[in-house]
């Protein structure tokens, strides 16, 4: 049982190859975060915001009513 409480032996992740993997792992995630931010900034942010007030949604779902109080 005492065996299982000892720290694990020197890890491959501390070796040269392991450190290189760690750098690649981190670089992928940073690259993706930057790419997603750029997509949001250039493709998503300029899009018009949908009007989702209840009255506007009613107009979207229903045929326009002639005497809707919210439309006055």
């Amino acid at each position, binding site marked *: 049982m005492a065996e299982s409480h000892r720290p694990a032996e020197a890890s491959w992740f501390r070796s040269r190859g392991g450190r290189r993997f760690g750098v690649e792992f981190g670089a992928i995630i940073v690259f993706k975060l930057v790419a997603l931010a750029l997509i949001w900034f250039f493709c998503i942010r300029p899009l018009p915001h949908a009007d989702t007030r*209840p009255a506007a949604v009613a107009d979207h779902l229903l045929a326009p009513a002639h005497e809707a109080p919210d439309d006055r």
Partner: protein
Amino acid sequence: MIDETVVTLSRLQFALTALYHFLFVPLTLGLSWMLAIMEAVYVMTGREVWKRMTQFWGVLFGINFAMGVATGVTMEFQFGTNWAYYSHYVGDIFGTPLAIEGLMAFFLEATFIGLFFFGWDRLSRVKHLVVTFLLALGTNLSALWILIANAWMQNPVGSRFNLDTMRMEVTDFGAVVFNPVAQSKFVHTVSAGYVLGAMFVLSISAWYLLKGRNIDFAKRSMTVAASFGLASALSVVVLGDESGYTVTEHQKMKLAAIEAMWETEPAPAAFTAFGLPDVAERTTHYAIHIPWLMGIIGTRSLDRVLPGIGELVGDAEQRIAGGMKAYAAMQRLRVDRNDAAARAEFEAHERDLGYALLLKRSLADPATASPDDIRAAAASTIPNVPVLFWAFRIMVGCGLWFIALFAYSFWLSARRELDRRRWYLKAALWSLPLPWLAIELGWIVAEYGRQPWAIEGVLPTALGVSSVSVAQVATSLAGFVLFYSALAVVDAVLMLKYARKGPDGLGMWPPATPEPVPDHSVVAARP
């Protein structure tokens, strides 16, 4: 009027991102448990090879995780950009499991993946094993909450339409969480992920054996993959049957389309093993039937009838007529919210409101619908029968192949003959893409089969789309395609690079100092 091009492009964009995202998710689901199993053996036996196996497969797991993480974020972008009315209409319900997934499961997963990679020298063996189990648990909990959200789209329980806010709102969160569709979908989906994880390890290990590299390492990996894969492949079939049964209960049209069951048949219905569905003629050419099978699978009885497409279209016509009454009552309530008769009329036909909204695809005002319009709207509730028919059968065929392959692998493993048959090793290697194919086809059956609904019986897909232009959707679609194509190339390059290097090329195995042979004499000497 609804711009069908915007609807089509928005659907295409969501489908592409979802299918792409789900290339990574199931491998994470499956590999995480395989890592936990391998590390548990390491902790129990102290054999270095199991630790190195955990670390090597952990590297490939890490690449997959890094490439896959956040690819689902773009779908959440789309809820706001392309599906704003959908988000408003059902966001009160749909958003909750998504938020819980982010707060609970994803943080758990993201925290422990760091400890998994960089905690080997800092944590005791047992603590590191706990980290690996928590990583697997977080991954699977993540899938649970996403599938609860998705299952609500298939079977919208625990909610009600609010006339004042013009959206669906939660009435019973417990019903949403314990939705029977969510439970069966979750276990079926994660089991499919486990099959993929097992196939991934089996195939790459088979390649090492074919190349004569890492023999001991590969054989042990294949042993774990064979047993885990066999259990998972059997689970997929059993739990897929349960998932199919919930479809019978809640999505009869989807089931009829999967079976190309054009008309109602006497119970118990036959299963069509092969055929060429003809939508125009509403018949299936060259059909090969297996008597009784569909009735037994679909209803678990010999006397319950499964309705055919023709009967279900007739039901839809009646529900459209009922929905038009609810729609007309809503119009009157919009003018006078205190109109008690209109409110009573609405509540009487509320469950059919979504069916009246199907008419909005071709008419500005459903109240003006003619009998021909109603018939056309009812006919639009039929999904694409040939696509569903074949997607389902290819998926099932793959599932049966997985059972056969893993059962044979298990048998060879028990006889210690995994490296003796080159044809088997080649079959294992070339089976690598099949779980991905089966999983993607499964999603196509689930989501394409739900059409024309975004929320089954509640909100037609076309009405969930935002008021955006074709150019705007096309621009964001192009952005996503470029982004995901770049990721796919990087992913393929990295996966191939590390898999080709293998444990020997990465300096993981064999160890610099030979592994001591465990002394079993103490155990053997015990009385």
